[in-house]
């Protein structure tokens, strides 16, 4: 083996050790997750359900940035306790973020946001102001259909009926 070969193989094993230790740390923190951890609602409106399924009864609705306490995980569903007096229930993991979402700029917490990846500032970056600015420069681009599209809402009970009528299994709530 040449000198370079030796160096390279030492380098490789070092990286391998680093990878293994990173994985160990990651799995240890995953195991600790569950009780008492807090997460944030990362969608405009998040539904809380009685059972871990989209077909479960909706027991509450939370807003963007709301902090919830994690009670139990049953991937991809998470049982949470909402802030305030709301009843606990299930939310799909895709509606929640590990990050704290701050709704207002300014203040001490927001200063931390710039340095850490654990905070997200709502309304920052590409936002309604940027869209307004864009619209001013591109008057030919029409947003009215986008607004109409987003106003089209499908009630959950219609989805349940649609699945049933179509002979589609509803046991797992229409999804994973």
């Amino acid at each position, binding site marked *: 083996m040449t000198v370079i070969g030796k160096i390279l193989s030492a380098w490789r094993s070092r990286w391998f050790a680093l990878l293994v230790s990173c994985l160990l740390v990651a799995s240890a923190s995953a195991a600790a997750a569950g009780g008492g951890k807090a997460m944030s609602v990362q969608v405009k409106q998040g539904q809380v359900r009685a059972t871990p399924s989209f077909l479960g009864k909706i027991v509450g609705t939370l807003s963007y940035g709301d902090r919830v306490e994690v009670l139990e995980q049953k991937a991809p569903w998470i049982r949470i306790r909402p802030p305030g007096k709301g009843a606990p229930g299930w939310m799909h993991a895709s509606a929640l973020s590990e990050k704290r979402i701050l709704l207002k700029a300014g203040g001490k917490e927001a200063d931390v946001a710039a340095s850490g990846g654990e905070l997200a500032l709502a309304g920052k970056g590409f936002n309604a102001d940027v869209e307004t600015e864009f619209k001013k420069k591109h008057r030919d681009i029409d947003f009215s*259909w*986008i607004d109409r599209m987003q106003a089209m809402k499908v009630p959950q009970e219609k989805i349940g009926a649609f699945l049933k009528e179509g002979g589609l299994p509803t046991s797992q709530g*229409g999804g994973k």
Partner: protein
Amino acid sequence: MRSLRSAAVFTLFLGGLAGAHGCASFEQVAKAGTSFARSQGVVTETQAQSIVKTTSAVAKTFEDITPEQEYYIGRTVGAVIVSRYKPYANAEANNYLNLLGQTLAQASDRPETFGGYHFLILDSGEINAFAAPGGLIFVSRGMLRLCRSEDAVAAVLAHEIGHVQLRHGLQSIDKSRLTQALTTIAAESAKTMGSKEIADLTRAFEGSITDITATMINNGYSRSFEREADAAAVSILSRVGYDPEGLVAMLGEMEKNLKPGGLDFAKTHPSPKSRIDDIRSLNVGGKAARVVAARQARFHKALGNI
């Protein structure tokens, strides 16, 4: 030889540093590593600068785009699409598409996006479909005319949901543009944005929209992105109970109907035949599509005259 060895020593140092710091971020490691290497004369000042720059660039990717920002990008991408293709204002057909699409989206790995999934038919004879970031999905009348069953429409929508779930649109934003925009956002995040920041961000926003729409409308995604979206579609269809063969059947129709040199799916997607081959390699089985009378009836009622 000398320079090769220096490079090896330098990399070894990077490795050692990472080991010592446990799981310290790569950016920190690279920064410290370059200052050490610079003092040893292994890299020049300019090279050091560029290493630090590139690693910071790596640290900011499409994954740093928040769901809220994705939502605003998606709205504008959608607006560009409906400004180019007129929407098809048939309430019954659009309601059916939304009901079917929502059912499928709930079975995806990413059922919840900031503003949710919404579907709209485009009044165009082209064989086309688009998925704007965040879940705004558009399907042309030309595409729907190729569908012979609800399962086939489900296959088209599931493929587009796959693109949203995998955030393919956001990944077509030019990397340096994105890094710059995200750096501005991060640097300014402690303060309220001023008019200069909004102007800068609007420019980055415009550029991002152009990158995404050019990819979606003109150039198409890579074959691997299409393969991933097809694989996502197969899993969504199976979870809901649709026959994944609906996707293969739909691709068969496209194979027959896409015109070589066309400006639609013919231009932006790999050939249907190669997509069928890729789906076959997923081993989804080859059972014949099951026709369910109730599904067929509602499909004809909503889209029979499309």
